[in-house]
């Protein structure tokens, strides 16, 4: 049965990028203000908060972040819980919010995510991110995150003939979309030639195949059907949600050209929503690396296994294509403040579904699927969203 009571009534993000001099708590509070005060949702209405953040202990030396962030944002007192699932932290926080509303325990909750990353050096961030892989069996021999996706890329290239140029086209698309998104880290188009610059991070992945190190926060308010009317005439409904896990170790996977948790989570979410991939007008997927978008587009059922690269070449995933993916620029060009990403993806889907995405608006926007992916793919969360008047 589709979920019936979960409504998004506001959703907002800070600018993503190098937010010099802005601390995690300050960017968090900015996102919360945008999703509450600025959206006509009084803070006093919020009954509980679910917060995604991945590695504040390592990057800003701060644990127990949920009450701290909430206090700074003027919401002290209510239940505040932090959710951690690597890059899927935001979406696991969202799922807790969904369950809180669907259970009837609360009428109005806040879901938010934030990460402060650029105050650390690149090697520090690389090492901290590696905590999302198996420390004893894979990180300890020098496998990095780009390396994980490099291995997936080699497997996909071997099995389906995907090329480095195909991956570069994903980067070109991401930068094109982000060029008109004022909240993006990189608001600049790049040429295919530039995307192919052979500055290898983890072969075959090059600099422009990788999402950047970013700061940023995002927040949204979920309410019950009854409560939603107080805030908006047109909420966005979450009708299906799925989450799945897989082995942390890449070596324990049978197939390296697909991520089983993405396949499993998306099938659960579609089934719950009573819809199919063909019913989705667009997708927001976790393009931490260009190959990740190609694989995700296959795993969520937009294209058959092995046809994701062709879809990019043919322009199907462009903003004006048949199956737009990441029409505002994705993680690749908008930035990837890890804990904020899963919430920001919902913010993007919300804006697109309402027709509020300005120059980045997709033409058909009734139904959307949102895919958030954690670490080596050991966690995946997929949500299916629909505008309430559809």
């Amino acid at each position, binding site marked *: 049965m589709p979920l019936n009571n979960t409504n998004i009534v506001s959703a907002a993000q800070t600018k993503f990028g190098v937010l010099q001099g802005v601390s995690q708590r300050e960017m968090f509070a900015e996102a919360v203000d945008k999703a509450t005060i600025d959206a006509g949702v009084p803070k006093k209405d919020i009954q509980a908060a679910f917060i995604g953040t991945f590695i504040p202990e390592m990057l800003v030396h701060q644990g127990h972040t949920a009450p701290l962030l909430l206090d700074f944002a003027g919401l002290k007192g209510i239940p505040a819980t932090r959710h951690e699932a690597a890059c899927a932290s935001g979406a696991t926080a969202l799922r807790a919010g969904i369950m809180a509303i669907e259970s009837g325990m609360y009428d109005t909750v806040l879901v938010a995510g934030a990460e402060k990353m650029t105050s650390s050096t*690149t*090697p520090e961030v*690389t*090492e901290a991110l*590696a905590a999302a892989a*198996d420390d*004893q*069996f*894979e990180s300890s*021999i*020098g*496998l*990095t995150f*780009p*390396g*994980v996706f*490099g*291995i*997936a*890329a*080699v*497997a996909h290239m*071997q099995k389906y003939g995907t090329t480095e140029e195909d991956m570069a086209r994903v980067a070109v698309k991401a930068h094109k979309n982000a060029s008109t998104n004022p909240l993006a880290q990189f608001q600049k188009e790049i040429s295919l030639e530039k995307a192919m610059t052979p500055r*290898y*991070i*983890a*072969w*075959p*992945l090059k600099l422009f195949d990788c999402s950047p190190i970013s700061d940023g926060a995002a927040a949204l308010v979920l309410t019950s059907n009854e409560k939603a009317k107080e805030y908006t005439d047109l909420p966005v409904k979450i009708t299906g949600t799925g989450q799945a896990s897989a082995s942390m*170790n*890449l*070596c*324990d*996977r049978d197939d*390296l050209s697909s991520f089983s948790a993405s396949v499993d989570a998306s099938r659960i979410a579609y089934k719950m929503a009573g819809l199919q991939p063909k019913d989705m007008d667009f997708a927001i997927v976790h393009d931490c690396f260009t190959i990740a978008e190609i694989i995700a587009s296959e795993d969520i059922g937009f294209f058959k296994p092995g046809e994701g690269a062709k879809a990019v070449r043919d322009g199907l995933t462009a903003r004006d294509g048949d199956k737009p993916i990441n029409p505002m620029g994705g993680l690749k060009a908008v930035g990837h403040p890890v804990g904020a990403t899963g919430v920001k993806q919902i913010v993007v889907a919300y804006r697109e579904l309402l027709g509020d995405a300005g120059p980045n608006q997709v033409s058909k926007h009734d139904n959307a699927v949102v895919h958030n992916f954690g670490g080596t793919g050991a966690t995946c969360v997929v949500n299916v969203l629909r505008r309430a008047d559809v």
Partner: protein
Amino acid sequence: MSEKPTVEEYLQNIQEGKFKAYKCVECGMVIAPPSGSCYGCGSSKMEWTEVSGKGKLVSFTVIHIAPDEFAEEAPYYIAIVELEEGTRVSARLLGYDPLKPEEVRLGIAVKMEYETIASGRKYLAFRPI
């Protein structure tokens, strides 16, 4: 070889150049790296087993940008290798120029060895036969 295997010993065995895998007592499945329960039958009863050291290359990458701890070793290969016994491990790949990865062919036969770095630390590694 009959004591209950542990992760600590698994890692220590690699440091001593004496790799051993887990083997499910119930169904005989060979498992490495260690798992607390068998992927085949779910049993948590494990024992040590020797492996032939032969395998085939499943996939790989070349790490160019590494955390500080590994920076001096970069660029280096990380590979996924399927052992003859059926299980897959992550390891270093030797015998190829890290700047010529296009020369590496997936599916090639490889043999287990160890890579010892300046600090004396050992990595599980494979080299084409």
